[in-house]
């Protein structure tokens, strides 16, 4: 099976690397957590499956200069491609263990769907269902109910770039074209969106988890959110300042955001901030025909221009 192959492959590569990043079981069998493997015995704790949610590419820019191995799903590999494109990491320093992915589970959604998830003793996939055993009773939910929206629309389930591709390729097809939450958002009037953000942003606590989880947010120590010179936004947690931060994050990621959804997943307040990133990404697609993280040669659209723009009417 491919987990054994993956473990073996990492063990073989480890002597030449400073560390390899993957996932291990978290605080319960219904969670996984990032794992940094330095020694051969660390590799035995590695897991891979529907709980391997984190986009581990987020760690790579901080480890620049080290020889690092990383396990990636399809969506994560787009972040790696984009980081390489922007010279934020160098190709010779990273060893990529690519996997095919059959979708991951949103812990928040699963937690809302089944009772007492923290007492789960096992979790497994059974066809299109997720089966969780809690207090010796099996609870069964449809995968599509508890996966993040990105898995419903996923067009790149296999690692797009790898030094070692392990196991079978996934042949998952997207279940829908537009994420359901985005569709509902698009149907709202501008006035309703104004009120929507006033409400949503009033619970943002400005913890910056969304920024810190983002693989493409690489200037954290100099982030506009905290700079005093220039002073772009105050630390006041009013809806206005919070929205200002979200729009800054969104605009800084325009043409670079790989729509991995880590920002939204990391948010402790469950704020639907991916809607803004998805809107910007759709704008970039329509205006410049560009999709971040799929083509290692493609220029970031906002760092270049065409004298005659094909899709801009003046």
């Amino acid at each position, binding site marked *: 099976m491919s987990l054994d192959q993956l473990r073996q492959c990492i063990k073989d590569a480890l002597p030449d690397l400073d560390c390899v990043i993957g996932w291990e079981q978290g605080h319960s069998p219904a969670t996984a957590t990032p794992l940094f493997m330095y020694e051969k015995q660390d590799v035995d704790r590695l897991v891979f499956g529907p709980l391997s949610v984190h986009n581990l590419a987020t760690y790579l820019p901080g480890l620049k200069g080290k020889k690092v191995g990383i396990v990636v799903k399809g969506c994560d590999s787009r972040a790696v491609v984009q980081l390489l494109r922007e010279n934020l990491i160098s190709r010779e320093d990273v060893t990529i263990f690519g996997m095919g992915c059959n979708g991951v589970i949103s812990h928040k959604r699963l937690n809302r769907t089944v009772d007492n998830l923290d007492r789960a003793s096992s979790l497994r996939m059974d066809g299109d269902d997720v089966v969780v055993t809690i207090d010796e009773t099996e609870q069964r939910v449809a995968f599509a109910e508890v996966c993040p929206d990105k898995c419903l629309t996923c067009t790149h389930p296999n690692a797009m770039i790898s030094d070692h591709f392990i196991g079978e390729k996934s042949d998952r097809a997207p279940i829908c074209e537009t994420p359901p939450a985005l569709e509902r958002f698009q149907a709202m009037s*501008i006035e309703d*969106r*104004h009120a929507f953000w*006033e409400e949503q942003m009033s619970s943002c606590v400005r913890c910056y988890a969304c920024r810190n989880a983002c693989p493409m947010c690489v200037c954290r120590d100099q982030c506009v959110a905290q700079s005093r010179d220039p002073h772009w936004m105050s630390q006041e947690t009013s809806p*206005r300042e919070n*929205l200002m931060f979200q729009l*800054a994050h969104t*605009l800084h990621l325009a043409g670079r955001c790989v729509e991995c959804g880590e920002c939204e997943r990391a948010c402790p307040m469950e704020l639907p901030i991916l809607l803004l990133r998805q809107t910007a990404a759709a704008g970039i697609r329509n205006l410049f025909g560009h999709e971040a993280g799929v083509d290692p040669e493609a220029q970031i659209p906002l760092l270049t*221009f065409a004298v005659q723009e094909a899709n801009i009417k003046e």
Partner: protein
Amino acid sequence: MSAVPGRELRIIGFLCNWCSYGGADTAGVSRFEQPTDLRVVRVPCSGRIDPLFIVRAFLNGADGVLVSGCHPGDCHYSEGNYHARRRLELLKHLLPAAGIDPARFHYTWVSASEGAKWQQTVTDFTNRIHELGPAPAFCGASTPEDWAAVALGAANGPGCSDHGGDGK
């Protein structure tokens, strides 16, 4: 005096130093009558305009934002306005998702000799903003009652007290 009847609104104009600021100056020197709602911020080049300038202006209570630079091909720094064009176009796409009416934002190109075009641009844009009325404020609502009031105010349109009251 505002050439547009009614209370003045807050319109912010980001103008590049080399063309549009010159164009506005030409309009002034020629004594063309213009609405006075516009507050001009002079920038070295339209390429200097971070889209966040515009977002910040709106969140701080601007009712409209106008950006003007040199015509494509005429940039003093050769390509600043080409970069600006991409960013501003993207911003136009993003504003409605943030709950800001994109009709409140306009960007255009005016050269230093085009005093008459400048007059026309400012007048048309100011008229448009007056038709839209004061922008609903990001007022910092923080309770369910406040949110309901904001939603109601937005639905009632410019006639409602939520719009452009003095305490905005």
